[in-house]
């Protein structure tokens, strides 16, 4: 009964959210669309970092692979942007798979270092191969729909975000999700119990990369412009901050973090790039004092309240 009530809650919230853009102007519709992009980015990074404990700094790079693959196909080969998005997602998955095989046996800090290096290499290639990518000049790409409409983009991003969340939810609640947790908690114990640690990590890394690739490809076609900012470390640290502040390792955390920080960034945009620095500092403080983020604080408050109620009800 309680589960049904929860589903009603969730359904009502999603329906209200889906109706929201009709009451807003284009500026606020834009904020919602960008927030949904970050929901996809943060939720897919959380699948890797929050559920298998593998901290990758290449997540924005995979979004860049998706964006540039789709954009270049559309501009240079005239490929339909929707097919480009599919191709970008696939290419990001392939890169994720190959990079995963290459470095996930090492685990720990080596994955972080390798993905950091990968991200920088990709950035340099994009900047220097300007005849193909247009480097810092930005690659202008066609939109996903013939007639530009914020409302249409909102529903495209909402659908993509729901698909991302559904994939993440399905994975963490399936048997493989238990393997993810087992690898995160103690990989030696997991291996001793028959879990193929490398396979689990590669799977998480590939799925996470593919979802980032899809988000990046959609985002590029929404902005109608792809620049090296998409696969930048700034973007990576923003996604990291959103996940950590929202709640690393929780399903709802990246959603709360993505909306919270994107809306907050609109307030403090006047400070330019310093807002990324401010988010980084907040993420550090949260990681130190509330490692489960906003969701963890909420859970802790509820647990204390329930305990107090139980104590009060005791004879």
């Amino acid at each position: 009964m309680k589960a049904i009530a929860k589903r009603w809650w969730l359904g009502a919230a999603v329906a209200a959210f889906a109706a929201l853009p009709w009451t807003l102007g284009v500026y606020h519709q834009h904020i919602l669309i960008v927030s949904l992009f970050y929901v996809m980015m943060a939720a897919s990074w959380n699948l890797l970092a929050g559920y298998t404990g593998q901290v990758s700094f290449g997540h924005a790079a995979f979004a860049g692979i998706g964006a540039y693959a789709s954009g270049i196909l559309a501009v240079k080969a005239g490929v339909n942007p929707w097919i480009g998005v599919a191709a970008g997602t696939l290419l990001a998955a392939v890169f994720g798979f190959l990079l995963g095989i290459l470095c996930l046996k090492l685990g720990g800090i080596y994955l972080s270092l390798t993905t950091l290096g990968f991200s920088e290499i990709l950035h340099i290639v994009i900047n220097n191969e300007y005849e193909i990518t247009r480097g810092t000049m930005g690659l202008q790409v066609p939109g996903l729909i013939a007639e530009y409409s914020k409302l249409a983009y909102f529903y495209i991003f909402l659908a993509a975000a729901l698909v991302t969340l559904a994939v993440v939810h399905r994975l963490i609640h399936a048997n493989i999700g238990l393997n993810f947790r087992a690898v995160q908690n103690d990989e030696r114990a997991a291996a001793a119990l028959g879990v193929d640690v490398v396979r689990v990590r590669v799977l998480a890394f590939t799925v996470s990369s593919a979802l980032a690739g899809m988000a990046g490809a959609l985002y590029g076609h929404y902005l109608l412009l792809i620049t090296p900012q998409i696969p930048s470390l700034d973007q990576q640290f923003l996604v990291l901050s959103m996940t950590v502040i929202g709640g690393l390792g929780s399903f709802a955390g990246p959603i709360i973090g993505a909306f919270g920080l994107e809306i907050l960034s609109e307030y403090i945009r006047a400070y330019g790039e310093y807002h990324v620095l401010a988010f980084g500092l907040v993420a550090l403080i949260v990681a130190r004092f509330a490692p489960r983020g906003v969701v963890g604080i909420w859970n802790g408050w509820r647990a204390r309240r329930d305990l107090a109620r139980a104590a009060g009800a005791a004879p």
Partner: protein
Amino acid sequence: MRSKAIAVGLVLALFGLAAVAGPALAAGPVKIGVVGPRTGDAAATGKAFEEGIQLATAWVNAKGGVLGQPLEVVFEDTAGAPDKAASGFERLVTRDKVAMVLGESHSSSALAEIEVANRLKVPFVVVEAWADPITAKNYRYVFRAGPSNSGVVNETIAQWVVAEGFKKAYIVAENTDWGLGIAQLTEAALKQAGIPFEQLVTERKSQDHYTELTKIKQYDPDVVLAYVYGTGLHYFVAQAGEVGLTPKAVILDGAGPPSLWPDYWTNVGDYGDLECFVSSMHEKVELTPLAAEFRENYVKAFGKAPTDYKSRSIYDAVLIAADAINRAGTLDAEKLVDALETTDLLTTRGRAKFGTEKGGPEYHQWMPPMLVIQWQDKVQTVLYPPEGATGKLKR
């Protein structure tokens, strides 16, 4: 619990958005937007823009404002990045409800912004982004009250190179729309003039030009046309002096302002002397009475003489916008475009009039006169055009 947390998150998002929405628009000042780099390696341009905006707004409001209301300028920082430029432009229109947008000094950013201007149907007067396609795309809502690459090359740089009798040239272009575009036009002009040349493309943010300079030195040119914007130009000039390329060869800064920024002499030291640059402003020469008034007001407001000509470019653009709004008698975009097309206004850089013939970069373009100036013992000497020259090239 999890679904409740998501629901709470979504509700918080709704409240957050409602808070960002702010109060409804009330009758008040007429707003126009300005886009430009206030951060990044061309932040000095943003500073020059702010100075020009302050003076122009005061000037317009002292004369009754626009449509009987005070004029207000909202500045959006683009950091010189096309993605930030496009989203910043959209924010000015959708959040700040500006009637018109002015500014920009990076061609790649402007090329991203004109697409937004065209989609949102908002008049956009580009000020200091020179790439030809900005106006060559012939968008109804896009104007340029400033130099274009083809105008600067064909009317100033190429003619100066011929007039000085240079024998061999080297073109160095940054990998941006402005750099690559102006290099291509220079190449065509030098070919036509029969002047041998070589060229290379450099990374816009590069701080190390030694390898490139060694290559240039081997070619032994007598003029180097440097299309590098921002502090990158300072590195180039200083390192050219270190490797001994200058003073044997003369460097022309094809953009201008970096040679006028306050940190120019600090960054380049004595290697900066004898460097040439293009500019629409000279420290002693004024083209119109309004230019003299601008200088006087600038000194009064900031306690120093104006150096970066982009402060005057944006000043002119604000005056052009105010004039168009007043003549249109409305903030309707279509009527503002019509008013801009019939602009005939005396500015600090001459009489502003936009081309209306479609088909090329001259459409919606007003090209102010440009000068070639050389630093001679840290004093500006006009070399070109001959009728405005205050001295001869020193080598």
